C-alpha cells in the first residue's frame, strides 16, 4: 500500500522533481563555469603581472636587491605594494639558487629550486610544488645582472589560482541562483496548468476503466487540449459504435448458431424418433447416421454400423443388392425406390426398405447421400391380403347364387323346363337365391361401411319392447319356420335405450335368422330381454345344432363358416354374426355366445343404458 502511494506520488510529482533537479544542475553548471572562468582569468592576470614584474625587477641592479642595500628594501616595498591575495613569495637568489633576500606571504616558505642555468632559460615561468603541504605555485623568474654578468635571479611566486568559493562571492552566486531556481516552480505550475485537462481526462478514464462502464465514456476539456479531447471523444464514439455493432453481430451470430443448433437437434430428434428405422448413407455409401429403431427392427446395433457399407452390417442379400444400386450413382440414374423383403429370422414378417437420394439443396446435380428407411409393413400386408381375401370371398359368395340362377334359367329353356313341377322348383330356388344375394349385398354394404367408419349411427331413444317385438314377429312370420316354437319374453316397461334402431334391428334379425336356420325340427326360438341397473340384456336362444368348441372363437369372423355338415347344408355366407357384432360394438355393447353342441345356442347382447349419457357428458 505504501509502495503504491509512493509510486503514485512519484508518478504525479516526477515532473516537479525533475524540474528541481534540472534547475539545480543548471545552477551547478553555471557556478562551475563561473569558477572555471574566474580561475582562468586570475591565472592570466598573475601571469601578466608576474612577467611584467620580474622584467622590472630584472632591470634593477643586483645590489639594490640585497637586504639592507637601501633604507627601504625593494622586496619589502614590492611585497607591500602587492595587493594581490595570490602573492606567495619574492626572492632573490644567487646563481646557485641559494636565497639572498626574500619576502613571503604569511606562512609561506618559498620552495627551493635552482633556476635553469642556460641563458635562454633565465627568464621564464614554471610551476612548483611545496615540499611540505604540496602547495602549488606559479613562479616567474628573471636574471639579475651586475656589471653585465649574472649575479643572481629574482623569483616571484604566486599561489596557483584554484577553484574555491570565497565568502565575498556568496551574495553574487545567491543572486545568480535565485532567479534560476525561481523559474523552476514557475514553469512547473505553468506546465501543470496546461496539462491539467489531460490529467483530468486520464483520471476519468482510469475511473471508467475500473468501473468497466465504457458506454458512458465522455471526457471534456478546454484550452489547448479541447481539440484533442474532442477528437478523442469522436474516436471513443466510433469505437463504441463499432463495439456495439460487433456485439450486435455477435449476438446475431450467436442466435443463428443457436437456431442452427436447435434446427439440427430437431432434425436429429425427428430422425431418431421416427417410427421407421432410418439409416443415412454418405456419398461413399457408408452409414453416417442411424436411429434406435434400427436395432429393434433389424437387430443391428445402431452405433456399430456407422462408417460401414450395407454389405458389412446387413445380412439380407435383397437389401444389400437394393442399396448397392445407390452406391456412387449419378443424379440421372437416382430416384426413390422401395422393395419388400422377408427377414430370414422372422419369416412371418414383411419389411419394406425405401431409399431416397439426398440432393444438395442448392445444387440439384449433387447427391449428398441416401436416406434409407426400413418399415415394418406386416400389418399393411396382412390388411391388403385380408382385403384381397374379402373381395375374393364377396365375389365367390355372389357367384355361387348367380351360378344357381344361371343353371336354372338354362334348364328352364331346355327339356326340364317343360314340366310344371320343375318350373315351380326353379321359381322357388330363384326366389330364395335372389333373396340370399340381396341379403348378402346388404350385409356386405353394412359391414364395409362400419369398417370404413363411414356409417352414420343415428341414435335415438327407442322403446326396446316395440323394436324387439316387431323384429321377432317379422322373422316368425317369414314362413320358413312353421314347425318351430317361438317364445317372446319382453318386459313391457323395459327402459328406452339410445340406439340406431335400423342397425340394431339388422343385428337382432341376423341372430333370429340364424336361430331359425340352424334349429332342429320342432325346436324353439326364444327372444328374451332383461333389464339391470346399468344394462339391458337381449338374449336370442335356440335349440339348434349348437356351435362346436373349436368354432366358438371364429364364428364372428367375416366369411367364416363351420366345416360341420349340419352348417354346410344350410345356405349362408358367414357375414351375419360378424355384422351383428360390429353393430353391437358400435353401440359400445358386447355380443357373446354360449352354446352346447346339439342342444342349442344363446347369443347375448349387452347394452349399457348410460353409454349415451356418458358420451354426451364427455
Amino acid at each position: 500500500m505504501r509502495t503504491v502511494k509512493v509510486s503514485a506520488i512519484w508518478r504525479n510529482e516526477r515532473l516537479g522533481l525533475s524540474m528541481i533537479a534540472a534547475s539545480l544542475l543548471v545552477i551547478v553548471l553555471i557556478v562551475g563555469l563561473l569558477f572555471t572562468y574566474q580561475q582562468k582569468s586570475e591565472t592570466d592576470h598573475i601571469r601578466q603581472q608576474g612577467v611584467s614584474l620580474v622584467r622590472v625587477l630584472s632591470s634593477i641592479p643586483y645590489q639594490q636587491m640585497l637586504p639592507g642595500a637601501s633604507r627601504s628594501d625593494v622586496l619589502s616595498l614590492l611585497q607591500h605594494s602587492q595587493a594581490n591575495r595570490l602573492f606567495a613569495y619574492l626572492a632573490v637568489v644567487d646563481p646557485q639558487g641559494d636565497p639572498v633576500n626574500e619576502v613571503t606571504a604569511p606562512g609561506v616558505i618559498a620552495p627551493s629550486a635552482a633556476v635553469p642555468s642556460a641563458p635562454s632559460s633565465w627568464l621564464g615561468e614554471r610551476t612548483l610544488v611545496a615540499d611540505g603541504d604540496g602547495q602549488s605555485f606559479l613562479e616567474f623568474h628573471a636574471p639579475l645582472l651586475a656589471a653585465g654578468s649574472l649575479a643572481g635571479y629574482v623569483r616571484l611566486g604566486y599561489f596557483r589560482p584554484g577553484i574555491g568559493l570565497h565568502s565575498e562571492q556568496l551574495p553574487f552566486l545567491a543572486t545568480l541562483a535565485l532567479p534560476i531556481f525561481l523559474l523552476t516552480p514557475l514553469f512547473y505550475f505553468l506546465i501543470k496548468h496546461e496539462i491539467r485537462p489531460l490529467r483530468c481526462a486520464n483520471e476519468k478514464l482510469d475511473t471508467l476503466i475500473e468501473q468497466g462502464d465504457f458506454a458512458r465514456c465522455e471526457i471534456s476539456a478546454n484550452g489547448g487540449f479541447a481539440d484533442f479531447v474532442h477528437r478523442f471523444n469522436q474516436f471513443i464514439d466510433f469505437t463504441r459504435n463499432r463495439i456495439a455493432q460487433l456485439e450486435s453481430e455477435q449476438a446475431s451470430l450467436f442466435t443463428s448458431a443457436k437456431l442452427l443448433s436447435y434446427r439440427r437437434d430437431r432434425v436429429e430428434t425427428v430422425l431418431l424418433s421416427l417410427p421407421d428405422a432410418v439409416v443415412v448413407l454418405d456419398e461413399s455409401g457408408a452409414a453416417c447416421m442411424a436411429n434406435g429403431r434400427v436395432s429393434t427392427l433389424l437387430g443391428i446395433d445402431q452405433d456399430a454400423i456407422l462408417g460401414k457399407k450395407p454389405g458389412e452390417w446387413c445380412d439380407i442379400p435383397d437389401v444389400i443388392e437394393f442399396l448397392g444400386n445407390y452406391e456412387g450413382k449419378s443424379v440421372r440414374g437416382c430416384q426413390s425406390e422401395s422393395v419388400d423383403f422377408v427377414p430370414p429370422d422372422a419369416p412371418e414378417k414383411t419389411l419394406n426398405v425405401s431409399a431416397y437420394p439426398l440432393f444438395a439443396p442448392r445444387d440439384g446435380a449433387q447427391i449428398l447421400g441416401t436416406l434409407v428407411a426400413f418399415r415394418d409393413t406386416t400389418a399393411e400386408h396382412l390388411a391388403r391380403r385380408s382385403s384381397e381375401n374379402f373381395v375374393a370371398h364377396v365375389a365367390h359368395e355372389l357367384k355361387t347364387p348367380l351360378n344357381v340362377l344361371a343353371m336354372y334359367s338354362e334348364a328352364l329353356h331346355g327339356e326340364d323346363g317343360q314340366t310344371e313341377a320343375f318350373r315351380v322348383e326353379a321359381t322357388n330356388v330363384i326366389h330364395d337365391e335372389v333373396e340370399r344375394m340381396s341379403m348378402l349385398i346388404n350385409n356386405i354394404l353394412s359391414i364395409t361401411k362400419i369398417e370404413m367408419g363411414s356409417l352414420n349411427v343415428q341414435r335415438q331413444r327407442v322403446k326396446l319392447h316395440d323394436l324387439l317385438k316387431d323384429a321377432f314377429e317379422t322373422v316368425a312370420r317369414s314362413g320358413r319356420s312353421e314347425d318351430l316354437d317361438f317364445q317372446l319374453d319382453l318386459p313391457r316397461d323395459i327402459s328406452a335405450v339410445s340406439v340406431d334402431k335400423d342397425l340394431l334391428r339388422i343385428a337382432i334379425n341376423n341372430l333370429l335368422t340364424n336361430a331359425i336356420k340352424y334349429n332342429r325340427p320342432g325346436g324353439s326360438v326364444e327372444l328374451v330381454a332383461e333389464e339391470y341397473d346399468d344394462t339391458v340384456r337381449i338374449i336370442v336362444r335356440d335349440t339348434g345344432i349348437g356351435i362346436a368348441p373349436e368354432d366358438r372363437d371364429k364364428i364372428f369372423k367375416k366369411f367364416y363358416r363351420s366345416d360341420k355338415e349340419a352348417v354346410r347344408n344350410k345356405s349362408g355366407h358367414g357375414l351375419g354374426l360378424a355384422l351383428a357384432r360390429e353393430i353391437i360394438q358400435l353401440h359400445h355393447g358386447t355380443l357373446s355366445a354360449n352354446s352346447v353342441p346339439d342342444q342349442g345356442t344363446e347369443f347375448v347382447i349387452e347394452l349399457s343404458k348410460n353409454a349415451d349419457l356418458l358420451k354426451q357428458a364427455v
Partner: protein
Amino acid sequence: MKRILMVEDEAHIVRLMTMALERAGYAVDSAGNGVEALEYLQGQHPDVMITDIDMPRMTGQELCMQLNAELPERDFLIVVVTARTEVEHREWSRMIPNLEFLEKPVSMRKLVSRLDEHFADTAVSGD
C-alpha cells in the same frame, strides 16, 4: 356308359348337373366334399371327375393335390368348376396334368359338349 363323379356341396347344383348329365347319357355319382370323393375313389375310378373348390372338410384343391400325389398314373380327366377365379388357383391347377379349369357360372350345355368332345377324343386315341 361313361361314369362321372361330381364333387359339389351345393345341393341345387348337384341336382341340376345330375339332371343334365344323365339326360346326355352319362352315369353320375356325387360326393359332397373331398373326403367323400376320396372314399368313392377307393372303390372305383370314374371316367371324369367334376369338382368344385370351396367345400367343407376337404376343398377341391386339396383333393386334386392329393390325387395327383397318390395316383400319378391317373387316367381320368378332372374338371375343376368354381366361382374362385384367383390367379393362384390357376397356378396350382396348371401344375396338375389332365386337369381342366372351368369358371362358374358354367353353362351345362357347354359342359356336356366339352365332355362329349373329350370322350370322342379318348375313343379315337384309344382306338
